[in-house]
């Protein structure tokens, strides 16, 4: 009896999932709640990125196209691809209506009156509509509970809220375009997916790390014959030409590329992103101290890595220097298992995991990686996590490592995933076998200890370090956190690699 009841429930869920407008009300509700929360965050702290975007509004509004990538009125020069500049241009029309000083090139410098703040924050909130759209489009065939879980995890992602709505950036809508692109690919609509990805690259070139994955997948899955290959190639070329064409015409391509790829910056950002290079730097520092103490004459640069400056100084005293080329090589090398897998089995279901994996590799081995780049793989990982308990555990672990102090989000996520993977809801035999091997949603002891250690470390950093060391060793707390988190993320990366290999 129980079996048939479960079967009926399953059937009902499946039927419900087929409706095209499924979950629309929930999406609208969640989106409205998220927007209200963002409204409450409006008066909070904003970083220099706020001024960066305000300046770009002024730049695109006041100057002609051929000056956009040349102008040096402000140190915050335009370093995103042309579509983003066009986006700012469109926004500047509205900015001018709200308050003309915002778009004034010289008078608007460092302008942060209430009108500017509200306008900019409002623009991020509006652009998040794309994020809502992208997520909904991807999730609309999931059962309702999984949909709600996904929306909860993505719309209210603390990382996204903090980066986009406090610190101030426009990641939300970019991730939305990424999710839209992946959703098209998931449905089998490869051409549209590919074009959307090309558009995304012309908004923010940082997303290009997953380009090899897309390329291999589309080549194997879509381009059965020359005609299709040409169609795809032509469309992508068209997109790129639309973006860069005008600058080609003005002969400014070299300048544009210089702006987009500023390799003059150092290996690590001022605040070390927890990636492989953070560990590398830490080991290097330790070795140099050790050798110094042992009497060797070691040339050490002043702590150039933790000031607010980024420079091209000789960063490493003992270990070999890292060049941008080496970093790119490592990224591609680490991505290669994934590329091989896609080449062999270009299946739709595998795509999301591989894209996420690609961004993780880019994060772990990339050059001058920002903390914020972690959003690129954490957010899509949510969508992969709702399908499988293994991935869910990893997602949970990663998101904790990124945002340890957000206890509420963690408990909500835990609850959500645990309910999702509770034993009695699984019916398919294969899944239950999987569960028996991996256990339900419970982290193994090592992970638990790691998280406990992280909590302890955070307490130390915030409260105790100052008491013990006062003003000495100011870089130590940050370094500790970076290194500790990098260990966690390296583990996460290796786990993702194992998922990819298992595909």
């Amino acid at each position, binding site marked *: 009896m129980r079996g048939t009841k479960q079967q009926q429930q399953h059937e009902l869920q499946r039927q419900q999932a087929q409706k095209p407008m499924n979950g629309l*009300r*929930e999406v609208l509700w969640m989106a*409205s*709640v998220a927007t209200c*929360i963002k*409204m409450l965050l409006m008066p909070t702290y904003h970083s220099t990125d706020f001024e960066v975007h305000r300046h770009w509004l002024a730049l695109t509004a006041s100057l002609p196209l051929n000056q956009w990538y040349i102008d040096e009125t402000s140190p915050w020069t335009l370093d995103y691809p042309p579509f983003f500049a066009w986006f700012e241009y469109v926004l500047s029309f509205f900015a001018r209506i709200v308050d003309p000083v915002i778009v004034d090139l010289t008078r608007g410098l460092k302008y942060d009156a209430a009108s500017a703040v*509200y306008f900019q924050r409002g623009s991020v909130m509006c652009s998040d509509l794309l994020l809502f759209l992208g997520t909904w489009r991807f999730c609309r065939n999931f059962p309702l509970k999984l949909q*709600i879980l996904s929306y909860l995890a993505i719309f209210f992602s603390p990382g996204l809220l903090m980066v986009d709505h406090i610190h101030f950036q426009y990641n939300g809508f970019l991730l939305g375009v990424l999710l839209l692109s992946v959703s098209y690919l998931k449905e089998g609509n490869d051409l549209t997916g590919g074009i959307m990805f090309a558009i995304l690259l012309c908004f923010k070139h940082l997303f290009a790390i997953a380009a090899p994955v897309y390329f291999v997948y589309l080549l194997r899955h879509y381009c059965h014959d020359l005609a299709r290959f040409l169609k795809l190639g032509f469309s992508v070329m068209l997109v790129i030409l639309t973006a860069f064409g005008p600058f080609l015409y003005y002969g400014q391509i070299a300048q544009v590329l210089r702006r987009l790829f500023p390799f003059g910056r150092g290996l690590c950002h001022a605040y070390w992103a927890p990636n492989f290079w953070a560990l590398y730097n830490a080991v290097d520092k330790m070795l140099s101290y050790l050798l110094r103490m042992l009497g060797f004459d070691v040339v050490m640069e002043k702590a150039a890595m933790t000031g607010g400056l980024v420079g091209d100084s000789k960063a490493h005293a003992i270990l070999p220097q890292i060049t941008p080329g080496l970093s790119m090589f490592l990224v591609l090398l680490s991505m290669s298992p994934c590329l091989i897998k896609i080449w062999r089995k270009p299946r739709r279901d595998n795509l999301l995991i591989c894209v996420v994996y690609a961004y993780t590799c880019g994060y772990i081995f990339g050059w001058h990686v920002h903390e914020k780049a972690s959003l690129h793989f954490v957010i899509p990982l949510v969508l992969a996590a709702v399908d499988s308990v293994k991935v869910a555990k990893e997602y949970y672990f990663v998101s904790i490592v990124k945002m340890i102090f957000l206890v509420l989000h963690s408990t909500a996520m835990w609850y959500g995933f645990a309910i999702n993977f509770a034993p009695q809801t699984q019916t398919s035999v294969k899944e239950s076998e999987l569960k028996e091997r991996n256990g339900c949603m419970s982290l193994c002891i090592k992970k638990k200890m790691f998280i406990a250690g992280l909590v302890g470390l955070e307490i130390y950093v915030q409260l105790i370090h100052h008491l013990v060391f006062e003003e000495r060793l100011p870089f130590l707390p940050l370094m500790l956190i970076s290194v500790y988190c990098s260990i966690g993320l390296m583990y996460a990366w290796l786990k993702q690699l194992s998922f990819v290999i298992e595909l």
Partner: protein
Amino acid sequence: MRWTVLTSDAIIFFPAVFAFSMAFHHQRRFDESAWAFAVILLQPALILIDHGHFQYNCISLGLTLGAVASICLHRDYLASVLFCLALNHKQMSAYYAPAFFAYLFGKSIRKKNPIFEVMKLGVAVIGTFLLCWWPFLHSRTAEAVLLRLAPLQRGIFEDYVANFWCASSLVVKWKQIFPNTVLAYLALFATLVSFLPSVVQQIRSPSHRGFLLSLFNSSLSFYLFSYQVHEKSILLPLIPASLLILEDFSLYRGMILCAMFSMFPLLRRDGLVVPYIATFALHLLLLNVPFLEKSLSHVKERQHPSLKYMSDGLLFTGCLIDLLYLLIEPPPRYPFLFEALNSLLVFICLVLIGLHSHIQQWSATSTHEQIDADKVKMN
């Protein structure tokens, strides 16, 4: 300083709401009581006033809620003590005094030895008052304290509040006709007359549901007719309305709309427009959660249609007025046009809600059974 409000909110208000939820909603399904709990706690009006405008209403409201919870748990002495503490924290809690008096008195005269019961309650009340006022009685500054509590010189109303005196002053210029002391007596008389029906009903047949309605009615009548009422006093009728959310959803919905719209001018002056919009919208979203629709369907179905239409109309008109208020300058002849329109609109709705709630209270089934149950419990 904001941390002190937050802490006192957490220590006093939250547990009180929890206690009330346990006491009154324990027979409900978990979904419903959890939702009601969330709605009571996330009162946008309270959040905006206490944490935005900055006040400490949460303490006296929390103590009052504790008293209400105690009454629902049949602990009348604890209730009296808690309510006296609330009174001594903020004299505005006196808005609830008639209801407490009526219920307790009504219960006492049904017991075996009425005079003894009344005396016991009296001891509790006087004892609490003595405890709180002891330092002032010692140093003989009690008189000064009392004078400060009743600032008659500030006039019968300030600004534009949605009460009777302000609304009717469009027609009858009270301040110009009568001096302040006469107005004070007039207000007292009007308030007495308006809360008398609900008091009488409770004395005649006390019950828990009737008590809550009586709390609402007496605080509403004070708000509408009392001397020198602030916009913030709308919190006082609002809280009992929220306690009744599962019993009468339309009452609460009408009330929260009235409360929020009536506070808009005050919040605009404080520069809290964006938080106002955000918390108001969040609360309306909370009242209409898509995935709780099935669980809450029978609560929503029992809405009174007339009140529902009134609320919908209020929502539309109120938003319109607020929008105009934000965007357009008022004509120079009537610089307070929008405030006046706002308070008039809210006043009319409050009167309608008040009528509805009085009818509700009088039609509440007589609960001799409830009192008999009390007797059984006590024996």
